[in-house]
């Protein structure tokens, strides 16, 4: 049983990992055909992963409702929203519009989901302003450099700033294209090296936290 539960999954990871890393360097038609089929499979499995991700909420809110815990009414709203959307979606065959005419599902999407999600993120505008006022202080030389760069870029990227101080546009463009580019490039190289190291650790079974779930 240990083999089935523990070693076989690690073996699968090892084989698929090496196979698809090696595939990149083997342009043989059979190897390309394997890549085509496997990525198609990955697409389908990706759909199941998505469902697994969102359905973890079901249980959590169902418990709240059955036990009538504090705020269970909100969980009821969540369920109503979800079931209502699913019903509208299945009724409309999963289409928001058919030949340019909005379906009920499209209506829910356009007039509920779009404004709700959009506004959720729009309120961050207020909090970043408040955070800037509270914590953006030149406490050290490094902080001062950060602050000055931020102010130049904020000025140089809007018409009013470029209108009042034309140089601010050029300076912020230089900061972005040269100074920022070099730092982001170093970060990109560093992060990529890290990601590759992690990928190798996964393939060779050193990193195995992704297996999770269930007893040994």
């Amino acid at each position, binding site marked *: 049983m240990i083999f089935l539960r523990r070693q076989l999954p690690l073996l699968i990871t090892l084989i698929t990992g090496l196979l698809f890393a090696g595939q*990149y360097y083997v342009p043989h038609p059979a190897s*390309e055909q394997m*890549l*085509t089929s496997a*990525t*198609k499979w*990955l*697409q*389908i*499995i*990706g*759909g199941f*992963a*998505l469902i697994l991700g969102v359905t973890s909420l079901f249980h959590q809110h169902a418990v709240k409702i059955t036990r009538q815990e504090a705020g269970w009414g909100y969980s009821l709203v969540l369920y109503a929203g979800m079931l209502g959307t699913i019903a509208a979606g299945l009724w409309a065959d999963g*289409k*928001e*519009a*058919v030949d*340019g005419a909005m379906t009920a599902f*499209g209506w829910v*999407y*356009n007039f509920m*989901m*779009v*404004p709700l*999600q*959009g506004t*959720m*993120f*729009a309120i961050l*505008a*207020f909090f*970043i*302003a*408040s955070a*800037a*006022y*509270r914590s*953006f*202080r030149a406490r050290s030389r490094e902080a001062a450099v950060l*602050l000055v760069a*931020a*102010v130049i870029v*904020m*000025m140089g*990227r*809007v*018409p*009013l*700033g470029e*209108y009042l101080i034309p140089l601010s*546009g050029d300076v912020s*463009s230089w900061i*972005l*294209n040269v100074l*920022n*580019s070099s730092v*982001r490039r170093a*970060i*990109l190289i560093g992060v990529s090296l890290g990601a590759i190291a992690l990928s190798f650790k996964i393939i060779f079974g050193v990193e195995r936290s992704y297996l999770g779930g269930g007893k040994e």
Partner: protein
Amino acid sequence: MMSFSERMLKIDRRIIFLVIGLCTLLPLLYPVGLPIKISSEVRGVYDHIESLPEHSVFLLSIDFDPASKPELYPQAIALLRHAFKKKLRVITMTLWVSGTGMADQLVTQVAKEMGKEYGQDYAFLGWSPGGPAVIINMGQDLSSAFPSDYSGRSTKDLPVLEGVRSLKDMTYMVSLGAGKPGVEEWYVFGKDKYKFEMGGGCTGVMAPGLYPLLRSGQINGLIGGLRGAAEYESLIGQKGKAVAGMDAQSATHFAIIVLVIMCNAFYFSLRQQRG
């Protein structure tokens, strides 16, 4: 007894909220229309589309959801208007499930406005899960990744896709990305192997991180945030929501700059008082 600086630093944050709200609202209601300078990053995408011959295949991947709509929706509209004007064959799709409805709506709207016919001049492939897997699969075989388009028609029967078997047949590709998967994934899993020319559009938050790819020529242009969209709208001479938002953008940036200066002034005066 709190000093003036101390009290100002502890001001109710809702006053700041109100200032930001007004700085956004007032310029939207009473626009000034300051001129917008065009950056070389945005011009890169524009010039490339401008140089494409008629019937070139242009793939636009609308990789965002309603959370980034204000920034990327105007970019998508401006790009589509430009591509349709240049009579390119326009293929659109999305890698973001929550963006599907929005992508369909904007493609349909711009096509209708430009008098384009579905299937003949453009197509919307819809969404497919798996991010990088979709990109690779499209690079291998487009009809495998998308056997049917958004409305369920077989992609093999669409005239606009005639001769287009995989990503290798795309003349130009732009990903409008709000995160992962987005511009970077399109490069790593797409262009790296399938060698099509590529440009990018992204949210303001992501833009600074994409400059290394721009410098190395891995993408040949970058439209960053609402500002980038406004530049593109100016370039094609059809001003829309992005240009309209630029005055408000100016006002809020200056509000933040003033807030930062005030906060530092109070901070230093407080530090001096305390010695």
